[in-house]
């Protein structure tokens, strides 16, 4: 039997994931995640004490540059053409701040 994923857990993860799941999707997600995590638990067989985690294949460091616009070449119209909604040369979103 697989790992049990609680309703609370699915609720919490869907908040983190910014997803609104239907009841059916929640049940599916519980089953899928349980099976996946069971499978992933194999990793516990590995002794990783003192092993450096590898987030990246090669050493990476911050790459700094002067804070000047470079490259892009795209104009505002071209970028805004992709916006689901725009107005006055800006992206339009639902009201988020009420300044009274």
């Amino acid at each position: 039997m697989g790992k049990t994923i609680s309703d609370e857990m699915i609720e919490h993860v869907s908040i983190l994931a910014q997803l609104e799941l239907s009841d059916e999707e929640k049940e599916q997600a519980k089953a899928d995640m349980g099976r996946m995590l069971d499978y992933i638990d194999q990793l516990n067989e590995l002794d990783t004490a003192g092993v450096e985690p590898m987030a990246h294949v090669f050493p990476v460091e911050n790459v700094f540059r002067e804070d000047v616009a470079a490259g892009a070449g795209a104009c505002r119209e071209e970028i805004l053409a992709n916006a689901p909604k725009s107005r006055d040369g800006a992206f339009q979103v639902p009201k988020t701040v009420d300044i009274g």
Partner: protein
Amino acid sequence: MGLMDLTAAELGKKIRAGEVSAVEAAEEALARAEVKEGQIHAYISLNPDYALKRAKQVQKQIADGTLSGPLAGVPVAVKDNICTRGIPTTCASRMLEGFVPPYSARAVENLEKAGAVIIGKTNMDEFAMGSTTETSAFGVTRNPWNLEHVPGGSSGGSCAAVAAREVSFALASDTGGSIRQPSAFCGVTGLKPTYGTVSRYGLVAYGSSLDQIGPVAKDVTDCAAVLEAIASWDPADSTSVKRDSYDFTGALKDDAKGLRIGIPRDYFGAGLNPEVKEAVLRVAWVLEEKGAAAEEFDLSLVQYAIPAYYVIACAEASSNLARFDGVKYGYRAAEYAGLHSMYKKTRSEGFGPEVKRRIMLGSFVLSSGYYDAYYRKALQARTLIRQAFDSAFARFDVILAPAAPSAAPRLGESLDDPVRMYLGDIYTISANLAGLPAITVPCGMDSAGLPIGAQLIGDCFEEKKILRAAYAFEQAAEYAGRSPAAGKPAGEKTAAAPEAGKGGAQG
């Protein structure tokens, strides 16, 4: 034989010699697509106007001597997760339906500088998440060798387009095998370069520490030539690598003398289809005849690659795909109550089931209280896996492996059980975890007439060794030119064409 039966190198030569124009080549690719797309559906979008306009410009530049490279005037298909300025780029997702990038990926810029002509954008699993191209929001792609079978994934469209002779070559991306596995299923040649060799600028990110763009082509020579064109150090991708040499075609020598080939026993045990096993091992015998020394060894840790990979890939995906919120581009839900509701509804309606599944898992393994147990553990496993490869490459130049446990499965067989589908990636994902270059070459057919591919894996920055091994094998491969109907060599220099011998329409 039609123009799309030629390799990119052969077609490029004809174009430079003035025997064929870039416009004729583009027209031929479009005509082939017209004939084949009803069956195959390799493309999400075709761009005849853009292609013909570009072909005319390129032809002019070839005539005046500005363009003289091997890919000048050669038609290319580009996977739909690689941005093309002015041409829709959807990632096969409703989320990006209608998105027109305001810039091109660096690899695309590089290709266009080399004079390649983009014909269209190819189908894929949604956001490259899948192994069959069945998770595309825009319909499945069919395997040109047998329409009842999948082309593999996630770059199923790119591989099917090349296999069906709809185009000369294609660009694709590989996060866990997405170039190499569908190349095997479609009987074409596909290369994943060393991490950082091709800039990821303009590649819609899935797993940023794993993603690489690479070529899908009709033979090894084309793969090397395309890699030379697209590879570049790029300030716009701070993980791209400045390489000492960008010469890859120099490796194309019909000689395997001195090459040490490692055959990991752990890759040829249970779970591998016997026909695939035999065909892949035959590659070692062929290379031995050409002077290589092959030896079996234990790679170790193989069974941990899949769990480590899915933790890391899903974690990176959950972070990368957080940008799809319905504000700046792509889909936005029609109805919502406030900003947060807009985010949630947009994402829930815009993403398909496999994408949501991976975002959920990724969000979980990164969440407070589970990060160390899952994400950090997977990164440590990754270190150990990389060390296992380091030991292997101290003894060998090239590792020989299958590209998939079997030939292409039938449509509809794979999606029900995610864990089972993920198991199919066992031979390809390690190269992504360790950053290694790897190439798939066709190495035979199974009894059902479906292609089998062999994978040659090299150490980081050792593309030339795997290209040399792949090229030497290709020159000796008696199945090259074989078609499923004829079942015997067609005697052509070019690689196998699915419908040649069936008397299929050749333009």
